């Protein structure tokens, strides 16, 4: 089982092979992460521009209606796909899967590298749409036809084509990456690492990846068909239309079909983002409260159940779309059923805190922040899933507030928490604590200030995707003041992210040396011989796993954690303990 000399030979030496054309999962993870953060910043700036218009309508002349809709669209699409999906799977997945399961790398390193470069290409194509005539598409991130490919929507010539092409490229990248992650988890686990000993982080990413492999084809299909409708004149989604006084040559297609295909991808997408967050946050909570996660087995099954169920709830986005109204019963029911495993996860997180020893480190702050924001987002989801309550709320600011809480803010908080947590492993240095706390407090309180009141604007009936609310009599003037307040909060939150960036850069070079296991965590990535881990991760020999990932505060042990690769007796999950008990008698 020696680390063959042939492998040593492969170790890259030049700068280019080491950091650019690297096939090392750790480098690819960093590439993914930095690219995603960069586009994420674009999306953040766009959101602040939108907020400027909403808070102070007309004050900023350059934000006209065309631009506003382009900002909404790119903001949404970038955040959901190019930032969150890429960062969780390509960033965290890439870095953590091999390290956490004790592998030397992904199973297909070349494919892994290609996945990143194809992703980068997708990002560049998307960004290119800012520079084509007509600008990027303003069709909303859902890209609903017919509107998305007709005049009357900004960017309906070039912008939409680039958007679709970019998505198709992204899907190719995600598929390459996804194959890798799945096969690595299935085939490359080190000795002793059974599936039921994997940290929940790996479980979350693993199930999310499988979901991505099943859901993205649906987006691919709708994207290709829409592209055909736009460029080749087919009528997949296009009925006979009189647009701006002109009869078009389309005929017989169904706009609702697009919505079904889109949401068959779109809803699982929510969980593709959420499940990794669930997994990561479970590990953060357990580590920083020095206690085993409550109900590990339940947590695993909940992840799997949520993943499976989320393929049968998609039409809750279409309750008022004009689809067959009887679907409403089915999809409302499945949607509310999915709340049960989701609630179990929340209970288990908070029950883990009970009788624990909570270290309020920065990652833990973000983890607790996540529980609170995810709680709101999950609960408001019950309004929108419960079909008759959704009817007045659909497409209002209630929806905007809901999905920002549940799949915007919450996963982002986990991403931050995760970065603060694993940064010491990636760089060997700790991030600055004070700046981290500042970053947490402003972001956490700021997002509450932005989104909590926003629900009420939705209940009032203010529709989303409105550039302005000129003279609507049903909206009291005070709503405008509230909007101004929200905008100020959003700007503060936006600017505060610079603190994070500064911290990231500064600590990379100047941070306090962290040692190999600053959080005294059990999982394998903290047990590497070198920090940051070298090429091949494990030096001469891969670790052997003897226990699950949650042996914290095991009675009778000197330390309050037992690494997974430690062979000492004791600890382990229920099954292990029962087995040990049997042996004794």
């Amino acid at each position, binding site marked *: *089982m020696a*680390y*063959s000399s042939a*492998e040593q030979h492969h170790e890259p030496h030049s700068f280019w092979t080491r950091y650019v054309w690297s096939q090392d999962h750790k480098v690819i993870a960093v590439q993914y992460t930095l690219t995603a953060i960069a586009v994420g910043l674009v999306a953040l700036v766009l959101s602040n521009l939108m907020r400027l218009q909403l808070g102070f309508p007309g004050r900023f002349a350059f934000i006209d209606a065309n631009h506003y809709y382009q900002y909404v669209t790119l903001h949404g699409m970038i955040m959901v796909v190019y930032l969150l999906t890429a960062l969780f799977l390509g960033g965290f997945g890439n870095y953590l899967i091999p390290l956490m399961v004790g592998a*030397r790398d992904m*199973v*297909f*390193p*070349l*494919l892994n590298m*290609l996945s990143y470069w194809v992703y980068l290409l997708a990002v560049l194509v998307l960004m290119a749409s800012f520079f084509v005539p007509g600008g990027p598409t303003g069709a909303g991130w859902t890209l609903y036809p017919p509107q998305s490919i007709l005049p009357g929507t900004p960017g309906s010539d070039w912008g939409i084509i680039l958007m679709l092409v970019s998505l198709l490229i992204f899907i190719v990248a995600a*598929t*390459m990456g*996804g*194959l890798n992650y*799945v*096969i690595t988890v*299935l*085939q*490359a686990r080190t000795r002793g690492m059974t599936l039921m000993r994997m940290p929940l982080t790996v479980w979350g990413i693993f199930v999310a990846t499988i979901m991505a*492999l*099943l859901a993205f*084809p*649906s987006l*691919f*299909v709708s994207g*290709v*068909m829409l592209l*055909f409708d736009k460029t*080749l*004149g*087919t*009528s*997949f989604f296009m009925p006979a239309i009189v647009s701006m006084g002109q009869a078009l*040559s389309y*005929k*017989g*297609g*169904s706009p609702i*079909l697009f919505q079904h*295909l889109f949401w*068959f991808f779109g809803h699982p997408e929510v969980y593709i983002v959420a499940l990794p967050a669930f997994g990561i946050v479970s590990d953060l909570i357990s580590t920083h409260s020095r206690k085993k996660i409550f109900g590990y087995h339940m947590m695993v099954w909940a992840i799997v159940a949520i993943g499976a169920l989320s393929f049968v709830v998609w039409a809750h986005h279409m309750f008022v779309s004009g689809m067959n109204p009887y679907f409403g019963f089915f999809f409302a029911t499945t949607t509310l059923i999915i709340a049960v495993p989701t609630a179990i996860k929340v209970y288990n997180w908070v029950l883990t805190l009970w009788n624990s020893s909570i270290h309020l480190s920065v990652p833990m702050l973000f983890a607790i922040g996540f529980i609170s924001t995810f709680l709101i987002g999950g609960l408001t989801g019950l309004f929108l899933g419960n079909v008759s309550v959704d009817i007045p709320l659909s497409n209002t600011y209630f929806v905007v507030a809901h999905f920002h809480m549940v799949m915007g803010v919450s996963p982002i908080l986990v991403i931050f928490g995760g970065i603060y947590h694993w940064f010491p492993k990636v760089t060997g240095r700790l991030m600055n604590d004070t700046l981290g706390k500042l970053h947490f407090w402003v972001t956490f309180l700021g997002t509450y200030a932005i989104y909590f009141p926003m629900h009420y604007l939705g209940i009032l009936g203010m529709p989303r995707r409105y550039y302005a609310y000129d003279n609507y009599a049903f909206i009291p003037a005070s709503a405008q003041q509230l909007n101004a307040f929200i905008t100020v909060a959003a700007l503060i939150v936006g600017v505060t992210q610079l603190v994070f960036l500064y911290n990231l850069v500064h600590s990379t070079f100047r941070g306090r040396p962290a040692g190999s296991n600053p959080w005294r965590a059990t999982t394998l990535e903290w047990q590497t011989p070198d920090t940051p881990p070298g090429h091949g991760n494990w030096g001469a020999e*891969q670790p052997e796993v003897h226990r699950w990932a949650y042996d914290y505060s095991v009675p009778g042990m000197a330390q309050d954690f037992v690494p997974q690769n430690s062979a000492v007796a004791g600890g382990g999950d229920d099954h292990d303990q029962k087995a040990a008990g049997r042996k004794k008698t």
Partner: protein
Amino acid sequence: MSVAQSARHDAGGARDGMPSAGKPALWVFMGVVTVLFAQFLHAYIVRMGYADWQRLPTLPTVWLNTALLLLSSAALQWAQVAGRHGRRAGMRAGLFLGGALALAFLAGQLWLWRQLTALDYAIASGPASSFFYLLSGLHGVHLAGGLVAWGMTIRRVGHNGVTADGLLAVELCARYWHFLLALWLVLFGLLFIVPPATILAICSSA
């Protein structure tokens, strides 16, 4: 496409005795492609239910192409069997023949496109033709990807005997080909053979 190919590439360097990952990777990939086409076919069948549906004529070329793909698949199967028995020459012959037939299939598909366009069944002429070009085109893209992997396999089966590595590559190729053949037969059936009324009846009863 590059997935299968790079799977094979990396599988050669399986580390630390890790079981070769090429096979499961191909299975997962075929699963993804199946989901992809299932989505398309779902859309296709929904659309078929509308009143204005008119199916395309079944030109002889369709039959010809189907036969080509069938033979191509068979040739690769032959290559695989030969390889398993250590017959390098047979393996190479089967591999070459299979690839050539696949290329012929692709050419035949392009020819079919031209024929249909000439008959006024251009891509935007109606829903059935739109779906036909879309589905056959996408199937073709997957086969073209397979041909890239095939090219790498040719290189790998080199000159000295049947290596485990080379045989694995041939086996993966053959499996992917059979998969694409099966996929094409499903498409062929749904696009040209089974009457729409039957398809709709089956799907609405399910």
